[in-house]
C-alpha cells in the first residue's frame, strides 16, 4: 500500500495497483469532523434529560454497573435507542433526498416535499385508523407501497413532451403532497377519536418512543439500502453529466434510475414508518454536505448521511431538553430550519431557469 499526496487529494494504491482511491483531503476532514460532532452529540444525548443523572453515575451505568433500575432504564432503554434512532433516521432521510435529487436532476427534491413521505404517512395513518388491529411490524411495507405509488405518479405526471422539468416536478410534487395530506386530514377528522389521537402522535414526527427494536429495523434496512446506494454512486456521477453522457460512459441509465428511485423511496418509507414524517432533512442535508466539501458522489453520500444524522439527532435533543418537560417533536424543528432553506433554493432555482 502506498500513499501519494496530490493537489488537495490523497491517493491510496495497493501494492500491485489493483485498487486506487483518490480521496479529497477536505472531504475526509469534513467527514472526520462530522463523526466527531456526532460522537459529541451522542454523549450529550446520554447526559442531558429530565431524569437527573450525574456524570459518575452515568459512566458507571454505561460500564455495566446497575446503580438503580430506573437509571438503567433511562440510559439503556430510553436515551440510547432514542439517540441512535434519531441518527439512523436522519441518515436515511438525508440519503433518500440525495438519491432523489440525483435521479430527478432537481436540487429541490425531498421526500417530504414531493409527497413521498405523505404517501407513506397516508398508508400508515389508514392502517392505524381503519385497521387498528394490524401489527406495527407491517408499517414499513405499507409505507413503502404508499411512497412508491406517489413517487411513480409524480414522475409520470411531471414527464412532459420536452423531458422532465425540475420546477414542474417540484410543483406537481407539492400539489400531490397537498392532495394526499387532505386525504389524511379527512381520515383524521372522521376516524375514531382514540385511533386518531394515536395517529396524530405518530404524524408529529418524533422519536420519543424509540426502542431497540426500532434501532434493529432501521440499521438492518440502512445496511442494505445505503450499501446499494454507495454501489450506484459511480453511475450517479455519470448521471450528473446528463443522460446522453451517462449512456456514452456506459452507465445502465434506466436500471440506475430505477434503483435510485427504489432506494430513495425505500429509505424515506422505512424511516417514516418508524418515527413518522420528518420533513426537510432530505433537502437540507445534501446541500449542507455539498457546502462542506466538493467531493465525488460516494463521499458526498457519506457526508450527506452524517449531516442528516447530526441534524435529526440535534433536533431531537433540543426538542426534548430545551423546554422539558414540554416535548417538541424533531419534525417540527427540522421544518423550522428547512422551510427558509427551501425558499432560498426555490428562488435560486427559478432564477436559473428563467
Amino acid at each position, binding site marked *: 500500500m502506498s500513499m501519494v499526496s496530490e493537489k488537495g487529494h490523497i491517493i491510496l494504491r495497493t501494492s500491485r495497483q489493483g485498487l486506487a482511491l483518490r480521496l479529497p483531503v477536505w472531504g475526509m476532514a469534513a467527514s472526520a469532523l462530522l463523526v466527531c460532532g456526532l460522537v459529541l452529540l451522542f454523549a450529550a444525548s446520554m447526559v442531558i434529560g*429530565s431524569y437527573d443523572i450525574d456524570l459518575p453515575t452515568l459512566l458507571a451505568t454505561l460500564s455495566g454497573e446497575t446503580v438503580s433500575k430506573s437509571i438503567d*432504564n433511562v440510559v439503556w432503554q430510553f436515551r440510547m435507542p432514542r439517540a441512535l434512532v434519531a441518527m439512523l433516521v436522519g441518515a436515511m432521510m438525508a440519503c433518500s433526498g440525495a438519491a432523489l435529487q440525483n435521479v430527478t436532476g432537481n436540487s429541490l427534491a425531498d421526500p417530504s416535499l414531493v409527497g413521498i413521505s405523505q404517501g407513506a404517512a397516508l398508508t400508515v395513518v389508514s392502517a392505524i385508523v381503519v385497521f387498528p388491529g394490524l401489527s406495527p411490524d407491517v408499517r414499513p411495507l405499507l409505507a413503502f407501497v404508499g411512497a412508491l405509488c406517489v413517487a411513480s405518479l409524480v414522475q409520470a405526471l411531471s414527464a412532459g413532451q420536452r423531458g422532465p422539468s425540475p420546477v414542474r416536478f417540484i410543483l406537481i410534487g407539492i400539489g400531490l403532497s397537498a392532495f394526499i395530506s387532505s386525504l389524511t386530514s379527512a381520515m383524521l377528522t372522521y376516524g375514531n377519536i382514540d385511533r386518531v389521537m394515536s395517529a396524530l402522535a405518530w404524524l408529529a414526527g418524533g422519536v420519543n418512543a424509540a426502542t431497540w427494536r426500532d434501532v434493529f429495523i432501521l440499521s438492518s434496512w440502512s445496511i442494505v439500502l445505503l450499501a446499494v446506494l454507495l454501489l450506484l454512486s459511480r453511475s450517479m456521477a455519470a448521471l450528473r453529466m446528463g443522460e446522453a453522457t451517462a449512456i456514452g460512459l456506459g452507465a445502465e441509465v434506466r436500471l440506475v434510475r430505477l434503483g435510485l428511485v427504489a432506494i430513495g423511496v425505500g429509505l424515506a418509507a422505512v424511516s417514516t414508518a418508524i418515527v413518522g414524517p420528518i420533513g426537510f432533512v432530505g433537502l437540507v442535508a445534501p446541500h449542507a454536505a455539498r457546502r462542506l466539501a466538493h467531493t465525488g458522489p460516494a463521499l458526498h453520500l457519506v457526508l450527506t448521511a452524517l449531516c442528516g444524522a447530526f441534524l435529526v439527532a440535534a433536533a431531537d435533543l433540543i426538542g426534548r431538553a430545551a423546554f422539558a418537560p*414540554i416535548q417538541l417533536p424533531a419534525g417540527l424543528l427540522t421544518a423550522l430550519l428547512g422551510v427558509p432553506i427551501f425558499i432560498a433554493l426555490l428562488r435560486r432555482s427559478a432564477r436559473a431557469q428563467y
Partner: protein
Amino acid sequence: MRWLWLVLLIAAGSVAPATAEDCAAGLRPFSDARGVACIPEQPQRIVALNDQIVALPLYELGAPVVGSAGRVQADGTVYLRGGMDTLGIDFANTDITYVGGFDALDIEAIASLQPDLIIGGSYTDAAQIEQLQLIAPTIVIDNGALGLVGTLRALADASGRSGDFEARYQRYLGNLERTKSYIGDPSKLSATLTFMFPNGEDLWVYRAGLGAISQLLSDLGVSQPRAVAALPDTQASWSPELIQQLDADFIFGFYRQQPDATPQAVRDAYEHFAPGWCEALSACRNGQFILLPGPTFGSTMTGLELALDLVETHIAARAYTPREGE
C-alpha cells in the same frame, strides 16, 4: 403435530389472564383494555397520561396522583384541562407534576417521579406503553368503550378507591330518582347536545359520549330529535343548513372558563355559524337554549353531579314550552 400443540399451548399461556397467584407480593391482577396486568394493591404514586379523563377523576377520589399529562397555553404555561373549572386545581396549586402532553410525553420526567402505577387511555401509543412498563405497571383504560361510569369505576378500582366511588355514585343515583320524579315522564322530553367551537366555524352534535351531560341525559331517559338519534357515530359535525333538525324541547350548549369561550362568545359563535339560528329553533325562541359550564361535559363525578343539579334547575323546576310540531 406435537409441535403444533406445543406452539398452541405456549400461545395460550402467553395470553392467559394473570391471577392473584401470578402477581408478586403486594400486587393484584387488574383487567384493562390490553388484558390483565399486575398492579399495586394500594398505589402510592400514580402518573396519569391524560389530565381530563384520568387525572381529574383520580384526584377527586383522593387518589395519590404525582404526575399528569397536561396542555400548554400560548404563553408556554402548562395547565390541567378542566382542572380549575371542575375541581379548582392546576399544576401550580397541587403537587401534581407536568409530564408532557398526552401525545408527547416526557418519559424521563415520568421515570423521575418514581411512580408505582401509570394510567393511560386507549390512544396511548403501543410502543410508548412498552417503555412505560419498564418504569411501573401501566394500564390502559378505554373510556370510549367503558362509558363515563365504567371509566370512573375502573379508575376507582385501579387506585384502590372503589368504596369512595360507589358511595358517591349511589348518592347520584338517589338524586337522579328525585329529579325524574320532578320531571314526570322524561321520555316525553327531548333534548339536543350541541358543542360550538369558539371560532364559530364548526358545530358538533352529540348523540352520546359527551362526558357527564351525555351520561345524565341517558340516565334520565330523555329522548333526542330523530336526526340526532339516527347518527351512526356518537357525534357528527353539523351543517348550518340543517340546523332546524336539531330543534327539541331543550338545546344545550357549553361555555368554559377561558376568554374565547365565555357565554357571550359562545352565543356569538352560534350566530356566526348560522345567522338567525335562534329564530329557526323553537327551543331558542322560547328561552330553552341553555348554556352549561365546561365541567358538565367533563369526565368526573363532580361534573355529573353538577350536570344533574343544573338540568334539574333548568328543566324540572320550571315551566317550559314544548317543541313546536311534536
